[in-house]
């Protein structure tokens, strides 16, 4: 059985990032993360790598929730499409939270997933590749492409590609 102290530490350090990760697919990200944490508590044997395990469970739960949300939206109309804020607004931050959210939302899903999992989740590209069912190099490529697109959208000029010495 899981130590409550460890669970509290996991919530403090990773819950918000997990919620952001789940938001890439669904609007009920908090419920998905909560269920994932409860699943972790109910595990008889703790996984070797808890954080990647949590990201995997959150990803699966978010994709399932997205499917059911799509069905519900079909009946309820488009009123439920507006989602909550992805980031905590901060004065000291160099990037506006709303702008960053809008820029992220316009990225393709796989690029968003790679950026969120790497920047806020702290996962390696190998772990991201395992999550997404692809190679680490592909996950890295998604990440770089997403960053470049974000840079363009957030108003900064695109950097020159490095010249490869022949």
């Amino acid at each position, binding site marked *: 059985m899981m130590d409550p102290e460890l669970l509290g530490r996991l919530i403090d350090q990773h819950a918000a990032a997990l919620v952001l990760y789940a938001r890439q697919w669904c609007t009920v990200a908090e419920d998905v993360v909560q269920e994932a944490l409860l699943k972790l508590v109910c595990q008889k044997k703790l996984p070797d790598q808890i954080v990647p395990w949590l990201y995997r469970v959150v990803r699966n739960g978010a994709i399932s929730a997205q499917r059911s949300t799509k069905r519900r939206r079909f009946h309820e109309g488009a009123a439920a499409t507006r989602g909550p804020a992805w980031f*905590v607004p901060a004065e000291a931050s160099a990037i506006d939270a709303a702008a*960053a959210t809008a820029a992220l939302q316009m990225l393709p899903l796989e690029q968003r997933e790679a950026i969120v999992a790497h920047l806020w989740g702290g996962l390696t590209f190998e772990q991201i590749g395992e999550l997404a069912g692809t190679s680490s190099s592909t996950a890295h490529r998604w990440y770089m492409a997403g960053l470049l697109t*974000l840079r363009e959208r957030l108003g900064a000029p695109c950097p020159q590609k490095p010249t490869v010495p022949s």
Partner: protein
Amino acid sequence: MSPEAYGPELASLAQALTGLSPCAGRLDRDQVLFRAGRASAGQQSRRWRTIAAGLAALAAVVGWGRFLSPAPQRIQCIVYQRAEPAASAVDHLVAQQRPLQDGTSPAAEDAGLQTDLLSNGRLERFVFAWGADAIPAPAATLGARQRDPLSGPRDLFSWNQWLRMQPP
């Protein structure tokens, strides 16, 4: 290819993005901890419920099996036991009032012939009914049994009777 490979600008963009704190939304830390505790307690109670349900099912199966099994067949046994006829009081009275033939009372003689067949219990009943005097002496009984019947009685009264009964 890391962001640094594209220059410091992309790296600073990544750094700036990391500076944004994700919003946890409605996720309540205390609620998660409470639900986690309840879930772990529920697991234990589920284990006990499973054990109780299993035992109840076992009891039901055993009870149903007993209900369905045929009733035990009643076996009638007849035990034959040799019953020694108890000497009735009338027989003993008649035997006592019979005239003596050879010096011993008929009851004693009768009893003497059966002494070896008497069980302890019967001997006890016999003594209680007729007293210790009615028990024949083992020597007299043995002598009466070993005596030749043709040798005739011993005392005079019996001899007279015996001679009277002889054919002329």
